[in-house]
C-alpha cells in the first residue's frame, strides 16, 4: 500500500536530511506505529505519503502509484484515498460537527444526498451519535479528535495517516482514540500512526517502525515503544539493541517487510 525505496528527503536550506535512505513497505490492512524522538522524521514520512513534499531521491509508491510520476492535478485523487488526522484536530471552529465532517465531502463534489447518508453513519462509527449539532468548542479534546477522525474516514479512504493524534489527550482518552483507529483498521483501512506515546504502543502490540535521525533503526511485529519483541525480519544488520539504536544503520538493500508483507498491489 505504501512503499519507500531508498527515500531521502532533505528540506531546502537544511544540511541534514529529515529522512535518509528509508526503505519501508506497509501492506494493505496493516496497522503501523511510527515512533522516534522529536525531529526524527515521522511527520516528514507522512508528508511524503501525501505528496505534500516530494522526496529528494528514491521512490515513494502509494496505492500502486509512483508519486514521482504523479502529475500535480492528480494529487487530489491520491489524497481522496488517504485520510489524515493531526495532534491539533484542525476542525473549522464556526462549523458544527456534522458540517465539519460534511465539508470533506462537499469539497470533493459529493452530492447532498450521499453526504446526508454518509455523515451520520461515520459519526456513529466514531461514537459521536447525537452530537452532530455541537460546535467544536463544545466538545472535549477526545471528542474533537473523533470528529477529525470521522472527517478523515468519511470518504472511506484506503489509508489513514495519524500524526500524533493523541498528543493533546490524557492517557485514557488516548487509548480510546487508538482503539478507534484499531477498529477502523479492522474494517480494512491501512493505518499509519506517528506517536510519542509509549504506553499506547506498548499496550497495542502492533508493528512498530522506529526512526532515528531519518533512519529506520527498528521494524518489528508486535513491538513495544522500546524494542524487545520479534523483529519483522531478524536481519542481522537491523539492530535489536535497546537504546543505542541511533548508532545503527539500515543497509541500503534491507527491506525487512518486503518478503513478509506480501505485495502492496
Amino acid at each position, binding site marked *: 500500500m505504501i512503499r519507500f525505496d531508498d527515500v531521502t528527503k532533505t528540506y531546502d536550506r537544511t544540511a541534514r536530511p529529515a529522512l535518509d535512505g528509508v526503505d519501508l513497505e506497509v501492506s494493505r490492512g496493516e496497522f503501523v506505529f511510527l515512533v522516534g524522538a522529536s525531529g526524527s522524521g515521522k511527520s516528514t514520512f507522512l508528508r511524503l505519503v501525501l505528496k505534500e513534499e516530494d522526496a529528494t531521491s528514491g521512490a515513494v509508491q502509494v496505492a500502486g502509484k509512483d508519486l514521482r510520476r504523479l502529475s500535480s*492535478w492528480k494529487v487530489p485523487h491520491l489524497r481522496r484515498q488517504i485520510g489524515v488526522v493531526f495532534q491539533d484536530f484542525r476542525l473549522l471552529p464556526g462549523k458544527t460537527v456534522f458540517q465539519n465532517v460534511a465539508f470533506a465531502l462537499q469539497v470533493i*463534489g459529493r452530492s447532498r444526498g450521499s453526504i446526508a447518508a454518509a455523515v451520520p453513519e461515520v459519526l456513529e462509527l466514531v461514537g459521536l451519535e447525537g452530537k452532530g449539532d455541537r460546535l467544536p468548542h463544545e466538545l472535549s479534546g477526545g471528542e474533537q479528535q473523533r470528529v477529525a477522525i470521522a472527517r478523515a474516514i468519511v470518504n472511506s479512504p484506503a489509508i489513514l495517516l495519524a500524526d500524533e493524534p493523541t498528543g493533546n489527550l490524557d492517557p485514557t482518552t488516548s487509548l480510546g482514540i487508538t482503539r478507534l483507529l484499531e477498529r477502523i483498521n479492522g474494517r480494512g483501512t491501512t493505518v499509519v500512526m506517528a506517536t510519542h506515546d509509549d504506553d499506547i504502543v506498548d499496550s497495542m502490540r502492533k508493528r512498530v517502525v522506529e526512526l532515528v535521525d531519518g533512519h529506520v533503526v527498528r521494524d518489528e511485529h508486535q513491538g513495544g515503544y522500546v524494542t524487545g519483541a520479534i523483529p519483522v525480519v531478524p536481519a542481522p544488520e537491523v539492530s535489536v539493541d535497546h537504546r543505542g539504536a541511533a548508532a545503527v544503520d539500515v543497509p541500503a538493500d534491507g527491506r525487512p517487510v518486503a518478503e513478509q508483507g506480501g505485495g502492496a498491489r
Partner: protein
Amino acid sequence: MLSEIGIGLRRNLAMTISVVLVTFVSLTFVGAGALMQQQVSTMKGDWYDRVQVAIFLCTQDSLSASCSGAATDADKAAIEQALASPPLSQYVSEVEFETSDEAYAQFQEQDAELSASVTPDQLPESFRVGLEDPERFGVISESFQGSPGVEQVVDQREVLEPFFAVLNAATAGSLALAGVMLVAAVLLIGTTIRLAAFNRRRETGIMRLVGASSTFLQLPFLLEGVIAVCLGAGMAGAVLLLAVDRGVTGWLAEQVPAFDYITTTDVWATIPWLFVGGIVLASVASLVSLSRYLKV
C-alpha cells in the same frame, strides 16, 4: 459555495472595496479613452464627407505668381472641364461653384463686423470639390496648384487637424492613466487574494488534505476577484453613461450643435467590453497569485 464567497468578500471588506474602487477608476479611464476615440472617428467620418477641397480663383488683387488679374471665364471653363473628365473625375463626387457674392453672404453671416470692411469682389470665387475619398486631396492639389487663374488649393480638413490632435492627445492621456491604474488594480487584486488565502488557510488546508481539486480550491477566490471587478466595471459604466448623457448629449450637443456626438448608445456598446476586460484582468491576476499561494 455562494455563501462561502459572500463570507469571503465580507471578511476582506476593506480590501474588496479598494479593489472595486481601483477597477472602477481604471475602467472609467479605459472607457473614456474608448469613447473619445469613437468621437474622433465619428467626427472624422462625418466631417470628411462634408468638408471639401476649395480651389480659390484669382481676384483682380491677387499677388500669386499664377495670377494675372481676375480669373477669366476661359480659366473657369478649363477647371470645370478638367474636374468633369478623366482622370480627375473618378476622384470627384461633386463640384459646386461659389461666387464672390455667395462668399460675401457667408462671411457676413459669420462675422458681420469684419465683413463690413471688404467688398464682395475682394473675396475670391471658388470651386468647392467634394471627393470620393477625402484622403486623395493630393491629386486635386497637384492638378490645380499653379494653374492659370487658380490662386490657391485648400484642403479644409487641415483646419480640423488641430482639433483632432487635441482629442487624440486626450485619448492617449486617458489610456495612459488607465494603464497605470490597471497595473495598480492587478497588484491590488494579487495582494487581496494572497491576504484572503492567508485568512482562510485553515479551510484551504483541510480542503487540500481531503483532496479538493485545485479548481475547487481556487474558484472561490477567483470568483471573489471577478465579482469585485464586475462591481467596479458596473460603476465605471454608470459614470460614463451619466457623463455622456449630461455632459455630451445634454450640454455639449446643445452648446455646439454643429457636430455629431457620441450618445449613450455608444456607451452601452462599450460597457460589455469593460466587463470583459475587467474579468480577464481579474482572472489573470488571480490565477497568477493563486498558483503561488494556493498550490494543491
